[in-house]
């Protein structure tokens, strides 16, 4: 099953880099048949990266996420907005449908709780612990690349 994994954030801003750090773990682990996308933030053209994939995983850090992390399925949402240049993953999925005209694959978000987002800040001690916890979880997801199995692992947020 073709998987695309997005890890976004800025590792120069403390825990904001948790997504890219998890993505780097996936790269090191050499998962087969996977496309890895790293960026500072999600943007409209990332919808194109979903074309042809059968399963998608978004890796992010969140301030208000329950610790250590939350895992949930996400769906296209046309009503999400923002005041900045960044898109929510649900909006990226929505752009697949309109205007690009294809159905996005089953998609999931693994969001790790972050505490420190200041420029130049290192990964926090708690962030480092949560990274390890999230990686253990992520390895299990990678071992069974199946939307039904992933749905059974949803944490409820």
């Amino acid at each position: 099953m073709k998987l695309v994994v997005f890890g976004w954030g800025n590792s120069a801003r403390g825990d904001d880099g948790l997504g890219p750090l998890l993505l780097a773990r996936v790269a090191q682990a050499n998962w087969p048949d996977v496309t890895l996308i790293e960026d500072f933030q999600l943007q409209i053209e990332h919808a194109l990266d979903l074309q042809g994939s059968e399963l998608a995983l978004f890796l992010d850090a969140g301030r208000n996420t329950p610790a250590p992390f939350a895992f949930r399925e996400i769906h296209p949402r046309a009503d999400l907005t923002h005041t900045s240049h960044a898109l929510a993953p649900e909006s990226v999925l929505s752009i697949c449908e309109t205007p690009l005209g294809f159905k996005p694959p089953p998609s999931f978000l693994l969001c790790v709780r972050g505490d420190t987002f200041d420029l130049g800040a290192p990964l926090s001690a708690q962030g480092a612990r949560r990274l390890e916890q999230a990686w253990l979880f992520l390895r299990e997801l990678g071992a069974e690349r199946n939307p039904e199995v992933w749905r059974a692992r949803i944490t409820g947020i």
Partner: protein
Amino acid sequence: MAFLETATSPEKLRRIAIDPLTRVEGHGKVTLLLDAENKVHQVRLHIVEFRGFEVFIEGRPFWEVPVTVQRLCGICPVSHHLAAVKAMDAIAGYRRLTPTAEKLRRLMHYGQILQSHAVHFFHLASPDLLLGFDSEPTRRNIVGVAAEYPDIAKQGVLLRKFGQEVIRHTSGKRIHGTGAIPGGVNKALTKAERDEMRAGIDEMILWARDAVRLVEKLHLSHPAFYNTFGEFRSNMMGLVDRHGALDLYHGGLRARDADGGTIFDHVDYTTYQDVLQEEVKPWTYMKFPHIKALGPETGWYKVGPLARVQVCAFIPSELAENERKNLLALGGGKPVHGALLYHWARMIEALHAAEVIRDLLDDPDILGTDLMADKSERQEEGIGVIEAPRGTLFHHYRVGDDDLVKFCRLIVSTTNNNQAMNEAIRAVAAEYVDGRVITEGLMNHIEVAIRAYDPCLSCATHAIGQMPLEVDLVDGDGALVSRRRKNFSGAA
């Protein structure tokens, strides 16, 4: 004192704060002071400046800086990358790049301009322009545009993608690329990469021209509104080449006054401190740059697309120059100053960027392999200036004998537009808020004026679950009267 900058008796007034709470380095806030009849007495845009940027850079080896600065901003990392490397060229002792290296850097830069302008117009501005400032807020976004204008939305996605591909091919990676290094570039363009981009560029030019025409059509549908919304007269500044043409990668500084008269011309940007200085105001962290000879009261200026297309004598690509003439015709020989005209000028620049990319791809030098210049004597100090998508960007460094950066000063485009954005929202507040009941639509009018400048208020960090917008109404004693929030779904 500028119009509506400071109220005479603020203690008697109610305070409204439009306060996006998102993003670490990009926290902008608008405050308005109103009396009992909602008459506006004071309007200010406060931006927490890019805190810690200089500290983040100081102490690092100079050769590392062009890569490190990309982490300052997730919106325009390429602009910081290139401004920094231009400064480091001088410090490392490189005076003149090879033709291939300079053209590859230009290709990267114009790719950045194209993708940034595309995402701003199609993603950030078009919801206001196509759906209406007062439209349903939960639909006033790119997805709402996609639903009603699918072809336009799709072109926006693909233009952005094309620009990103230009960056990837010239820098080696989608992000954190190391394409430009002191003295040149470290990656040649392959023929396959060139051919791939060349195959797509003609369609990009067509779409960019359609986007210009779309903005023009919107303006012509309601010219009195579009031409005067957020309008104020000001000086303008930007880089031009030695012929006076628009050059977004390199040139001399030129400033014009509000009537188009020349204030200074072809100023070597390494002497920028002779012509520009910054003022500090107690109510904001962000400085106010101005033309030294004119002083802070009258010497402030605007930068970015609308300034650039009027500072230059011409745009050196045919289609964009024709569109520039159409835009300038609005002024009947005088500069135009409406805030929404930024969108028109921005799309003209996007068209120009696409034309430049085509011409660079057709240039045999672009496939050259002579990537590094000859090295001469190292310098302690270097200054790099570039026209970033949002305006003139200054990077100024001093390096010690140990090769570590000991001084860093950045004047980013948004800082150069600080006073201009304040003037724009004051004009909008006076026209649309004064004496009226505050609604989400009116709040959005102020945001529309700010967005016209495409300020970099939120960049390289994000966190799911933060509140995008909060508006507090506080009485003269500071007590909270009411609070309106726009939640993550956009509902007020």
